[in-house]
């Protein structure tokens, strides 16, 4: 029997990454706040950027908040996409913000945030999203923000409040999470993954000496999805995905 309540169509935020939209049955359920997690060099920033550029091209205002890398450097190196058009930035469809600049503006240049500081930061991000009419947001990375939050309670409070606010504003959000290659969890503090509506795991996998980049949707509230492992290729026309071959049984 088909469960109609579950199947009731939730509006999708089409990522524009064909393979990923297929895995997610049409895209990320709109207003979700999800985690893209993986170790260094697995493609988190690249995929997040592609998500934003496609959004901007489809007429949805998109914003990238860079925490670790200066956006000027990011723009110079990290956008080899053929479909990227400088005009998206000039016309305000695609906005880049440096988190350190925001910290400075808010007087948050300190090693550890208080609960009040969290309020200030969440409100500031919410205001920007509201004022600019942002529909897609990426924070790269949430892990770097968490360094200043320190405790599980604060991390929980920050992500919950941010998620609620952004969701009310109709904004679909990707939080980039950095983990070490051997990490057993999907996030540095464990809290992030529990609160997020979805988790997309990127990995570098070794298979008999070959290095493959892989992608797996671990969870995604609001949609049915494949949990299979996919091999990915980062190209100038975007991320391409194919199911990992199993080759079970030897031969």
């Amino acid at each position: 029997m088909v469960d109609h309540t579950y199947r009731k169509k939730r509006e999708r935020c089409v990522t524009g990454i064909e393979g990923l939209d297929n895995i997610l049955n049409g895209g990320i359920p709109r207003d979700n706040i999800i985690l893209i997690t993986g170790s260094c060099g697995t493609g988190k920033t690249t995929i997040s950027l592609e998500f934003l550029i496609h959004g901007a091209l489809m007429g949805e205002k998109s914003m990238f908040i860079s925490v670790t890398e200066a956006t000027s450097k990011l723009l110079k190196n990290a956008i080899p996409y053929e479909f990227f058009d400088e005009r998206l930035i000039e016309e305000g469809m695609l906005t880049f913000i440096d988190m350190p600049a925001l910290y400075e503006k808010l007087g948050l240049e300190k090693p550890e945030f208080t609960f009040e500081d969290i309020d200030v930061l969440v409100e500031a991000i919410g205001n920007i999203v509201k004022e600019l009419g942002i529909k897609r947001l990426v924070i790269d990375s949430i892990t770097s923000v968490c360094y200043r939050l320190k405790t599980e309670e604060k991390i929980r409070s920050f992500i919950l409040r941010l998620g609620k606010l952004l969701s009310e504003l109709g904004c679909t959000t990707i939080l980039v999470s950095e983990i070490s290659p051997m990490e057993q969890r999907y996030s540095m503090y464990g809290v992030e993954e529990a609160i997020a509506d979805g988790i997309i795991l990127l990995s570098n996998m070794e298979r008999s000496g070959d290095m493959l980049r892989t992608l797996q949707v671990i969870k995604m509230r609001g949609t049915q999805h494949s949990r299979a492992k996919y091999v990915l290729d980062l190209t100038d026309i975007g991320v391409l995905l194919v199911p990992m071959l199993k080759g079970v049984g030897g031969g």
Partner: protein
Amino acid sequence: MTVALKVGEKLEKMPEASVLGIKTSINTYFDVIQGILDNFANARGMDVIYVTSTVPATPILNALKMLDIDLTNTYFVDCISNVLMGRGEEEENVLYIESPTMLEMIILKVEYLIKKTSRHAERKKIVILDSINSLAIHNNTKILSEFLHVLTNGLRAKDAYTVIFMLAEHSSEELENIVAFVCDDVLAVEVEEVE
């Protein structure tokens, strides 16, 4: 009839999205390629994606140029150069894969070339897999069979032609079976027919 004509004629009779296995010996190898490129693909203004795991792309390119075959719309996916000689000079129109065991990367590079060549002109595509035997040196039959399935299904969905080479000298019944399983037809090019 020459081998090239015979191959061209065979493909002409097949509808789009077809998969053809070609069993050829070393003697007729270049005649088969000529048949696909000259008598079929170039004659019809198609894009050719040539996946090689047998011989590196450079010697194949050079040999085809010697035969005066137009390679303007031919692209290579080379999965053997790195294994045989390490990273060397890279050719234009050739994508390199580190190892023939990275079967998923073959599928992804083929998809890339199809998308990349589709954006400006709506040209039909033909993908040549040369050869199942050399892939079998590096992969077990189970994963090869799965690979052929995923590859050919994807190409059928894109209305592309697929040609899979089987080298008669290195063939086995098991390999011929997994190829036959995904093919609409298999053409055996007999050595006797060479003029």
